[in-house]
Structure formats: structure tokens, C-alpha cells
């Protein structure tokens, strides 16, 4: 039975337009610029904010740092840091805190200069870390791409998934990116070689990075950031924007287990919680904003969210099904151009909420007519080993 409540809504959004800040601004400044713009979008001010959510990416005591920097004295501070899905966790917690009467206006921010700092996120050497697991694994030289590639390899082995099927994810996402001027500019600024719509053949013939994943299946490394304002129904009623209600959420964790199955992500646990709370089924959704660190991340999560059965993702995505102009075939995927082709400064989760809200407000550059229901699913950490999953179901009025 559904326990859906409409007690918190996204009322303000902003995505930092530049993906290459040329070291001219700091991550904190990006957060502040996005926060101001998102508050303005809602018709609110700094003084309205009484709850702050931050992924602890800026400093050791980020909750304190960010409050002082913004000039806010919040009643709620949440610095949940679980990687790229942190913002889905924050949205879930903001709804919970608002519903409990602890806050009225929640502010989520993200800022990163990963590109300017030349962070080799995907293919960097895994230095010896300090956790026991790191001390057992780092000698093997598993790059981040290789981590995801092992999930892809196992998926191919168990279910017969093909490179062409995985490429569908990249092709649909790039098609959406080409319609988004900020994504096109991002690809120019990050010096993509060939900025155009791609074909399956383009993807499967691009350079191999870590078998079986190829260049056009890997996300970009950009600068960027964003902000999301979540408010109580009373506040939302007086905002300038149409409310985008958070109607369900789920959180889950996965890590390597002896005899475990890496073709199943933590979404298998977060999704039933979120859909159950929302009282909706996957086949009712118009929009799927799914963390596209790599093609395999999306394919795995489409299955785990319940759009199709485990192992059937390959055939399911065939034939351009995920494009925004095929609404009868199920949800449109990553209509902003995704991390693959628009924006990935390291932790993409906040952009999933932002683009989902755009769709439900009717403001996307690849707008699905009448979009009413969306899922934003963040995957934080690494798909092939340890990660977190945050599922948020969103609905328009």
C-alpha cells in the first residue's frame, strides 16, 4: 500500500553553466553562485534557509564551513557523504526533516573544479589507501574504469549482453546532449574531438579504455556544480515555481562479498523502498535520470529499478528506446545529456534532481510532453565493488 505524502517539494534549481572555469573560481564560489540562483529561482532568499545539506567534499567540517560561508545559521545540518549519490540521500533526508517539522527550506549545493585540477578520476592510479579493503586491493591496479568494466564483463557473460546494446545508452544520451546548448558548450570546452550525434558503430569502434568499456561509454571530467532548494508545502505554495514533489525515496549500500553478484547494484534494495513509498510502478514513469558514469551503470540500474527483468536490459534498450521522443516506449533517459555528454565534475547526483525537476516543470531542452513522473537514481562509489544507491521519485502537481 502506498504511503505517498506530498510534504516536501523541489522549488528551486540551478546548474552552473560552465564546465571549464579555468581555475578562476573555487568550488565554494560555485556552490554559493548556484545557491543564490536556485533561491532566486524559487523566489526565496538566504534568510529563508534553515537546513543545509553538503557532501563533505569541501572541508573537514563542511557543515560549519558552508553555513558560515553562506551566512546562514541552520537548524538542520546533514553532511552525508556517500559519493555521487549523496544528493539523492540529501533530498530524502530533506523531505524527512521537513515532514518532521525540523525545517522549512532545505538547501543542497555542489561545486567542483575536477577538470581544472586535472583530476584523472577514471584512469588514475589507485594509490594505497588507508582502509583495510584498500590495503588488500590496491596492488592490483584496478582503475575506476576497470572496476565498472568488470561489472560489464560479468553482465555480458551471464546474460549475453552485447557491446552494441551498451552503446545504446551512449547514443541516446549524446542525442539529448546535442539539443542542450550547455552540453554542447561543455563538450567544446573539454575539447571533445567530434561533437555530433553518435551511432552504435561510433561507440563500439571508439578506443578501448578497460575491456569491455570504450571511450564513448565513459563520462567526462568537467568542472561544475549545482543547487537544489526543497521546501515545505506552505513555503512551496508561495514560490515562483511549480512544485516538484518528492513522493518516494530509498537508500541502500553494496560492497564486495564472497560469492556475491556484481551484476546487481544496490538499486535492487533502494528501488522497492522508493517505488513502494511513492505508490507508482516503473512503467508509469516518464523520465529516468540515472547516474551515467559509464554505459553499464545505466543498463544495470534500469534493470534494478524494475524497468525490465535482471539480465534483459540489453535487448530492452535496443532500437533507440531511451530517446526523449519515444514516450510510448518508456522513460526518456538523461535528457540533459548526462555525465557522458554534459556534466560530470565527480559527483553527478545533484544534476539528476535538477534535470528531473526541469522535465516536471516543462523546461528541458529535450522535453517529454506532459512529463508527470520521474526517477532520479544516484550511484555513489563504484558499481563493480562498493557503492551506495539513492532513489528519488518525483511528481509534478
Amino acid at each position: 500500500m502506498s504511503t505517498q505524502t506530498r510534504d516536501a517539494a523541489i522549488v528551486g534549481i540551478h546548474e552552473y553553466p560552465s564546465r571549464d572555469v579555468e581555475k578562476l573560481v573555487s568550488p565554494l564560489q560555485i556552490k554559493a553562485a548556484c545557491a543564490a540562483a536556485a533561491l532566486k529561482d524559487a523566489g526565496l532568499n538566504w534568510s529563508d534557509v534553515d537546513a543545509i545539506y553538503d557532501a563533505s567534499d569541501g572541508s573537514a567540517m563542511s557543515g560549519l564551513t558552508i553555513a558560515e560561508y553562506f551566512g546562514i545559521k541552520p537548524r538542520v545540518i546533514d553532511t552525508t557523504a556517500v559519493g555521487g549519490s549523496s544528493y539523492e540521500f540529501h533530498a530524502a533526508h530533506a523531505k524527512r526533516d521537513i515532514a518532521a517539522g525540523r525545517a522549512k527550506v532545505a538547501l543542497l549545493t555542489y561545486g567542483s573544479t575536477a577538470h581544472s585540477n586535472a583530476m584523472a578520476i577514471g584512469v588514475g592510479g589507485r594509490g594505497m589507501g588507508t582502509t583495510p579493503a584498500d590495503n588488500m586491493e590496491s596492488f592490483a591496479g584496478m582503475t575506476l574504469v576497470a572496476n565498472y568494466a568488470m561489472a560489464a564483463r560479468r553482465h555480458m557473460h551471464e546474460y549475453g549482453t552485447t557491446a552494441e546494446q551498451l552503446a545504446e545508452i551512449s547514443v541516446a544520451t549524446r542525442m539529448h546532449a546535442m539539443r542542450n546548448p550547455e552540453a554542447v558548450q561543455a563538450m567544446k570546452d573539454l575539447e571533445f574531438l567530434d561533437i555530433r550525434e553518435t551511432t552504435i558503430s561510433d561507440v563500439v569502434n571508439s578506443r578501448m579504455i578497460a575491456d569491455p568499456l570504450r571511450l564513448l561509454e565513459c563520462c567526462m571530467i568537467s568542472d561544475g556544480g549545482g543547487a537544489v532548494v526543497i521546501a515545505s508545502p506552505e513555503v512551496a505554495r508561495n514560490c515562483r515555481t511549480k512544485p516538484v514533489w518528492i513522493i518516494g525515496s530509498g537508500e541502500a549500500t553494496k560492497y564486495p562479498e564472497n560469492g556475491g553478484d556484481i551484476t546487481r547494484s544496490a538499486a535492487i534494495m533502494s528501488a522497492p523502498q522508493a517505488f513502494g513509498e511513492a505508490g507508482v510502478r516503473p512503467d508509469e514513469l516518464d523520465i529516468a535520470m540515472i547516474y551515467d558514469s559509464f554505459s553499464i551503470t545505466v543498463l544495470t540500474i534500469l534493470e534494478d529499478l524494475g524497468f525490465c527483468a535482471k539480465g534483459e536490459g540489453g535487448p530492452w534498450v535496443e532500437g533507440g528506446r531511451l530517446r526523449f521522443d519515444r514516450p510510448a516506449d518508456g522513460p526518456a533517459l538523461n535528457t540533459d545529456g548526462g555525465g557522458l555528454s554534459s556534466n560530470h565534475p565527480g559527483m553527478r547526483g545533484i544534476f539528476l534532481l535538477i534535470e528531473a525537476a526541469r522535465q516536471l516543470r516543462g523546461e528541458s531542452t529535450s522535453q517529454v510532453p506532459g512529463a508527470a513522473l520521474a526517477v532520479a537514481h544516484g550511484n555513489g562509489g563504484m558499481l563493480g565493488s562498493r557503492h551506495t544507491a539513492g532513489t528519488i521519485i518525483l511528481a509534478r502537481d
Partner: protein
Amino acid sequence: MADPQRPLPTLNEHDSHAFWQATKNKELKFQRCANCQTLVFFPRSHCTGCTDGDLTWHTASGLGTVYSYSVVRQSYHPFFRSKAPYVVAWIDLDEGPRLLSNVEVSDPAEVSVGQRVQVHWEEHDELCIPLFAPVR
């Protein structure tokens, strides 16, 4: 200039110390709880299956199966860049632990999911690194 070196584990990490200590003797160790039989790997000081944990050390045969793998073509780490292309793999040891390592082959195309592999040891001053190769 010296050749780039593989990043090595530290012997000063509390949970994995005994595992790496045993590699000096080319022994691949894992833990099992005598109270509840839970297999514990990576090594820990507590049992993840019960609160009356009684962890005992066992030595694996060194035989296992490739659960999944990737051929790394690009790495910015100097050592791994010098090794590329190389194979990283999750290996299911016959006794149950799943271990991350390299499968050393002359041609990465020789590696496959489900392949039988056996441990061999790369010697260093303080410890040995467990690497794998296909069982011939």
C-alpha cells in the same frame, strides 16, 4: 632512473597485517569463524556473522576461478602504465574468498570468465604479492 614500482600494501594496517605477514611464506590466508562458520575476507578482527566471533586462520590452496576481469589499457600510475595492457580480475578462491588480483598472461585474450587460475608469488622485501595465471 629507477623502474616504476608496484604500489605495495603496508604491514602496519591492523586488519590485514596477519594476511600480508603470511605472504612472506607464500601462504594465502583467510579467516573463518569457529562459532558461526562465517567466511571473513578481507581480514578483520571481528566476525561479521555473529557477536561471539572466534576467527581462525586457514590457508587457501591458491586455486580459483575468474569471476570477472578487465584488460586495463590506460592508467596514469607509472607502474601500471608500464604494464598496460594488463588484466585485473576478481578471483573466487576454491575455499570461498573473492580476491582482487592480476592474471598474468602474455596475451590478455587468453583470459576468460570462469577460467581456472592458480596463485604465484611476486617477491618483495617485506612481503609477497599473490598474482594468478591460468592453470595449464
